[in-house]
C-alpha cells in the first residue's frame, strides 16, 4: 500500500490568513446581461418600515443582510423588470450577487458579482467587515489574472438562496 504513495518533496507551510477575492461582474455589466433591451435603469429608493422588515425577516434573514440596491429596468416607458444587488455573509465568505426579475416577478437571472473567501478570523472582525460596507463593484468586466483556481475550498452558497427568498418577498412589497 505505502509503496503506492510517493512523498512529495514539498511541505505545505503554515500560511498567514489569505483572503481570496474575485470580482466577476460589475453592476452595469450585470444589468445589461439581464436586460439587454433596457434603455434605462431607474433606482428605486427603499423606505422599509418596521412592519415590512419584520415581514422580510420572517421569510429569511441571511447573515449580513442589509437593504439591497434596487432598480427598475425600463425600455422607454415600459417596465421590463426589477434588478437587485444584494450581499450575504456566509461562514467564511462574502458574496455580492445580482438578481433580475421580469415584470411578473419571475427570476430571469442570478449572477455572482463578487466573492471573497476568508479563512475564519477576519469575518468576525468588525473593522475588517466594515471595509466592504458601501463598496460597489467596478462597472467593467474585471479581468482576473492573479487569482488561482482552487480545489478543496468550501465554497458555500447556502445564504444566497436565503437572500433570494428575501428579495422575492421584498419585490412583493415594492410599489407597482
Amino acid at each position: 500500500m505505502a509503496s503506492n504513495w510517493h512523498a512529495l518533496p514539498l511541505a505545505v507551510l503554515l500560511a498567514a490568513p489569505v483572503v481570496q477575492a474575485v470580482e466577476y461582474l460589475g453592476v452595469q455589466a450585470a444589468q445589461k446581461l439581464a436586460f439587454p433591451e433596457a434603455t434605462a435603469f431607474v433606482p428605486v429608493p427603499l423606505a422599509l418600515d418596521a412592519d415590512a422588515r419584520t415581514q422580510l425577516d420572517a421569510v429569511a434573514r441571511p447573515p449580513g443582510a442589509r437593504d439591497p440596491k434596487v432598480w427598475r429596468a425600463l425600455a422607454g416607458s415600459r417596465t421590463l423588470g426589477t434588478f437587485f444587488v444584494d450581499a450575504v455573509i456566509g461562514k467564511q465568505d462574502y458574496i455580492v450577487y445580482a438578481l433580475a426579475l421580469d415584470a411578473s416577478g419571475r427570476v430571469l437571472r442570478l449572477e455572482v458579482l463578487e466573492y471573497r473567501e476568508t479563512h475564519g478570523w477576519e469575518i468576525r472582525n468588525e473593522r475588517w467587515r466594515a471595509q466592504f460596507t458601501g463598496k460597489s463593484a467596478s462597472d467593467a468586466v474585471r479581468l482576473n489574472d492573479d487569482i488561482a483556481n482552487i480545489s478543496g475550498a468550501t465554497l458555500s452558497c447556502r445564504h444566497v438562496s436565503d437572500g433570494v427568498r428575501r428579495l422575492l418577498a421584498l419585490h412583493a412589497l415594492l410599489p407597482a
Partner: protein
Amino acid sequence: MRCCPPDEACVRRAQPWLGTLVEVALPVSQASAARFDAAFAAIAQVHRRMHPRARGSDLLRIARRAHRAPVRVHAQTFAVLELAQRLWRDSGGRFDPAVSRRGAGLAALQLSRGRHVRCSAPLQLNLGGIAKGYAVDRAVDALRAAGVQAGLVNAGGDLRVFGSDRWWPVQVRAAAMLAPLCIELREAALATSGAAGGPPRLHDPRRGRARRHGGSLSVAAADCASADALTKPLALNPPRGLRLLRRHRAHALRLSAAGRAWATFEAATPHLRLSA
C-alpha cells in the same frame, strides 16, 4: 495568491448552482456572454434534474414513486445513477448515496432498459457527491459545442480544464490555516474531498458515521465525474481505491492536516505537474 501566470488572462463568471459557487473561466479572446450562458445552462439542467428535493426533479420522483412502479428518468440522471451503482459496487458498499442509513441503501436500486428506475424499497437519494463532477463535464461539453477551445469550469472545488496546449494553475487546499499546494493541470479534471474550512464529511455507511481522514484527498482524471467519484472509494477503502485509480488511469494527491504531501506519481503526469 498566485501560483503561476496563465498564458492569457481570463474572464470569469460565477453563479450559484448545486449548492455551491460554480465558476467558469474563459480566455479573453474566447469569452462571450452566450458562451458563459451555454455553460451555466448545462449546469442548471443537471441541478434541476438531480436536486434531491426540488419539485420536478428525477430524484424526487424516484423517492416518491419508484418503489411502487418504474420511473422513467432523463438520460443524464440515468447516467449518474449508473455511475453511483458502479461506485457502490466498486467500494464494497462504502459509497452509498442513499439518504436514509436504514434499509437496503443503494442495493434497493434497479436500473433497467428504457431508463427505468425501480426500487425494492422507498429510496431517497442525494447525488451531491457525484453530480457536481458530472455537471462540470456537461458544461465543458457545452463550451466545446459553442466553439470554445480552452477553459475552466469549477463547481465548488470539482473542476475541469480543457485546451490541449494550456497548463492551468490550481491550488489544492488541505486545511484552513495551511498554504495551498500549487499544481498545474492540462486537459484534466481534479476533485478534492475533505478540505479547508471543515472536517471531511464523507459518510461510511458501514460504520454509520462520518469518517475523518484529516487533510484532503484529490483525484485527477480525464473527466470530472470520474475524478469526483474516485475520491470516495479512495477515502473509504484506500487499497481498493488505489486499484480503481489505476484502472481509470487516474492519479491522487494526499495532503495531511500537518502539511505533508503524497502523490501516486513521482513528479508529473502528462496532465498534472507540481508548480515550481
